Structure formats: C-alpha cells, structure tokens
C-alpha cells in the first residue's frame, strides 16, 4: 500500500510538470495511417489549446507522462477548465487515433538549439 502511494504521488508530481519541449519544424513525417487520421482530429479538437502538443491556453501534452487511460479519461470527462469530449463528438476510434498521433509528436526528434 505504501509503495503504491509513493508511486501514485510520484506519478502525480511528474504529470503536473509542464516544462515545454523544443517545437519541431520537420518538413516530412513518416507516420502510420492511424496517426494521420489522429492528426486531423487533433487539429480539429486539440491543437488550439495545445499547439503542436505544447503548452498554450492549456498545459503541454508532449511531456505529460500520465498513462493513456488517464488522458482518455480527461478527454471524456474534462478536468478543470478543459471541456469534456463525449463519444458523440470524438468517437472511440478517433480517440485511439489521436492517442497514436500524440505518441508520434512525443517521439519526434527535437531540433538542435
């Protein structure tokens, strides 16, 4: 129980960190078709508050270590100022695609500074 408590606390702390990563400006990306579909949905629903997965009106996503199920929960139920996106707005398949696109943004190689 104590070990779980420590892990949960550490996870919460890490998840709350919002240091921003270098924006990427690559011309071409090699991404899976699901991620391409996710990109279109991301642009439609997420980009304006989390531009390129970075912080803006909302917090950064690229360096958010929260597991996928927590992110899905937040999309569906909304937490804090974030609105909820129910399945009639973002379908389960579309949400899966968005999660895949988020992973591609996380993996992209930062440009040298």
């Amino acid at each position: 129980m104590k070990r779980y408590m420590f892990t949960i606390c550490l996870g919460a702390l890490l998840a709350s960190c919002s240091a921003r990563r270098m924006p990427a400006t690559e011309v071409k990306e090699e991404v899976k078709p699901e991620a391409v579909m996710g990109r279109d949905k991301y642009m439609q629903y997420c980009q304006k508050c989390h531009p390129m997965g970075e912080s803006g009106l909302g917090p950064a996503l690229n360096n958010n270590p929260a597991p996928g199920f927590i992110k899905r929960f937040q999309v569906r139920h909304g937490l804090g100022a974030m609105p909820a996106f129910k399945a009639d707005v973002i379908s389960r398949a579309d949400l899966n695609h968005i999660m895949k696109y988020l992973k591609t943004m996380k993996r992209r190689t930062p440009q040298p500074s």
Partner: protein
Amino acid sequence: MNRKNINACLLLCLLAIMYGCYGTRASKGGGQTSVPHNRTTRAADLLLPEGYRAEVVATGLNFPTAVAFDDNGGLYAIEAGYSYGEVFTHPRLLKITDGKAETIAEGEKNGPWTGICWHKGNFYIAEGGQTSGGKILRAGIDGKLTPLVEGLPGQADHHTNGPVVMNGYVYFGTGSATNSGVVGPDNAAFGWLKRHPSLHDIPCEDITLNGVNFETDNPLTTDPADKAVTGAYLPFNTAAKDGQVIKGRLPCTGAILRVPVTGGKPELVAWGLRNPYALAISPDNKLYVTENAADDRGSRPLWGVGDVLWEVKDGGWYGWPDYSEGKPIKLFKPPGSPTPQPLLKAPRATVPKPVAVFAVHSSSNGIDFSTSEQFGFAGKAFVAQFGDMAPNVGKVLSPVGFKVVWVDVATGEVKDFAVNKGRKNGPASKLETGGLERPVSVKFDPSGKSLYIVDFGILKTTPDGQSVPVQNTGVIWKISKQEVL
C-alpha cells in the same frame, strides 16, 4: 513509509494538483516580461526546417506591418503609425534598399496601416482609421496618396484591414468594434470609448436582437458606483429590446468588402467575422482570410476561441457574434462565468466550417501562399502569428504564437515553420535571444523563392492589461531555401 512520510506525499500531491489546476495558475503570456527593452537580431536564433536559412533585411522600423514588391522586385514596407497602447505616429510607406529605408509616402495620424499590395503600378494600402475612420489608399510610386474609399470602420478595437486585388476589385476587411458584439469597459481600457462614446458594431444586413443586455461599471462617469446597461450593436449604456431590429448598412463592421480599383462604393462580400485581418489569394484563385477570434474580456467574454482561417465565399455569413470557429457560442464559456447567450434572434444561415483553427490568442494575422517548388510547400499557406496579448485577452499558461506556421488548406493541418530556438516558446525579448518578436505578416517575393517575415517589434503587456509597445524595434526577415550543391 511512516505516517509523516505519507502526509508529506499527500501534501506534495495536493500541491501538484493545485499546480495543475488551471484556475490557480498565473498567466504567462509572451508580453508579460520585465526584461529590459533591448532588441538584437541574430538569424541563427531562428529554428527553421532543415535546408532553410534566415537573414535580416532591415531593422529599426517603427511598427512595420506589411511588405510588397513592385514590378522590378523592389521591396517596400509600411509602418503602422499606431499601436495598441495608444501610441500614434505618422504611418509611412518605405522603400527598402540594402537594409536602408527611404520614405516614399507619409500618412496622417490615422493608422494603423495594416496591409499593402501592389497592382499595375500602384500600391493599395489599408489605413486602419483609429482617429477618423478607415480608408483604402492608392499610392503611386511617386508617393502620392489618393483615398479610394473613406469613412470605413476603424476607430474602435479593430481596424480596416487587408487588402488584395482580384478581378478588378480591391478586397479588404473591416474589423469589429468590440470583442463579441457589446461595447463595454474593456473598450474604455483600449482608449477609444472615451473618444467615441457612440461607436458600436454595425451589421451588414438587418438583424433582430434577443434583447440580451449586460450590466457593467460605467467608465464614462466619475461615480465608481455608476452602472451601465448595454445591448448588442448599440452604443455603450443603451439597452436592447427583445425583437429589436438593427438596420444593416454599408460600410459595416466584421466584414469583407470590395471596391473597384478605379474607386466607387464599397460592396459586401462576406460578413459575420470578428476581425478579418489579412486576405490572400491561393494558387487556385480562391480568397482566404485570417480571423482574429474573440477574447476572454469585456461584457461578454468568450473562452478558448481559436483564430480561424476561412475560405471566403461571396455572400457568406461566418457566425460572429453568435458562432466562433463555426460552432455555437455556448461552447466557449469562460471558467467560472455564465454560459454566453446568443445575441441574435435566429441564426442567419448555415455557418461554414473553418479551413483551419489556430492556437487560442495566437493572433494569426498575415497570410501568403507558397507557389514555388524551389522554396517548397507549394500550395501551402503561411501565416504570421503576432502572439498573445495576455493577460488583457485572457490567461495563457505559456506564450502562444510569436512564430510563422504553415497550413495545409486541404486538411487543416497547422505546423510550425519559423520559431525561436530554445526550450520555451515566446518572443525574443522574453527568451533574451535575437530571434522573432511579433511576426505580423508574411509575403513571398515575386519569384516565390524567398519568404519575407514582417516583425512588428517589441510589444509588452503589463499585469493590469496595458499594452506597452517599443518604437523602432521592427524587423524584416527573409527566409530562403539553401541551394543543394
């Protein structure tokens, strides 16, 4: 783990949650910096896609807003002559040669000059009209200024914008007077409400009001207890009645209008826009406009509204003030505030779907299309993002904008093209680098091989929401693709 450690963990969790809570976090906009004004420029501080390089073309410009090229490829720039923060100077048309600026024409203190284009031996300039109303000016190469049309809106929050020439007409934008249709104390903070207390938005066609009114403080009187009640499309402290009809007329606010290049009366192209800032014609001859969307301020604040790229259709109505991004206004409720109510009795028409939605408060402004395979991105739109004006426009958790993005108009994809290097986004003055400050417009040269970025210069914001522009800090950048040997 003993009880003491568990308590410490719980406290850390609480702090983490509080830190993560939007309501408890302070705004960190790009203009919110106490770093001293010191503009340096270093092209190496820009982050570009591989194979592209930046160079500085001109520095020390006073609120530059746009560039144009004559038939010989000569570079011209306009200086606005006005900046938020109530700084008035004379707008100027400059010829830029080898980094030196020569004055071609000087306008009246009625800026900001917001856009310029070149067409068949003349420049067409949008004069914002903060003092006496907007104009479209024609300027010969000799610098003689002739008004093509006068008496346009522009003395309030937003100005006369654009222009582009297409099919024998000068197309231009007229910004809304207000944030979301209702004159309020935020307009007094801008500075214009006390100068022009009767100004308000003007619909392009007849509208019927819901009778929704907003009670606010009255900044026009000295009594701090005095209240004002104001309805949409009406002067400050004038209440609306349910079913009240506001007659539409031209020139109206929040619209795209056109006038023949030879002059004449303005004609309506499209309306229901908040601040249509810049127009551009795509390679397939379609007209596009960037729209600065509503802020979290004033009597009717809206939250989380992204700036928009629209394709302009003749006769189109784009939804402002009851829709944003093509969605109903109820979806843009500020945290802790009531749900915004529609102002109009019924939707006027089907609201179009945006081509792309930009970051909230990014102030996505100037736009141009790449047409050159040599530069790359052919058919893609490039958009200059001036950057947030937080906290005046609302809170942001990090600086938003301060970069140039490209847009795939077929898919709505928005990606960074030119940003400042560093771990964080923001203007150079905040990052303490020599990079971009506030990109306000972009323009490809006639060959299409180089992209010019007009950088307005330093504009800071104070904690109480005042704008503090710094004169003579504007820059013109040039981005080219390096030749592969």
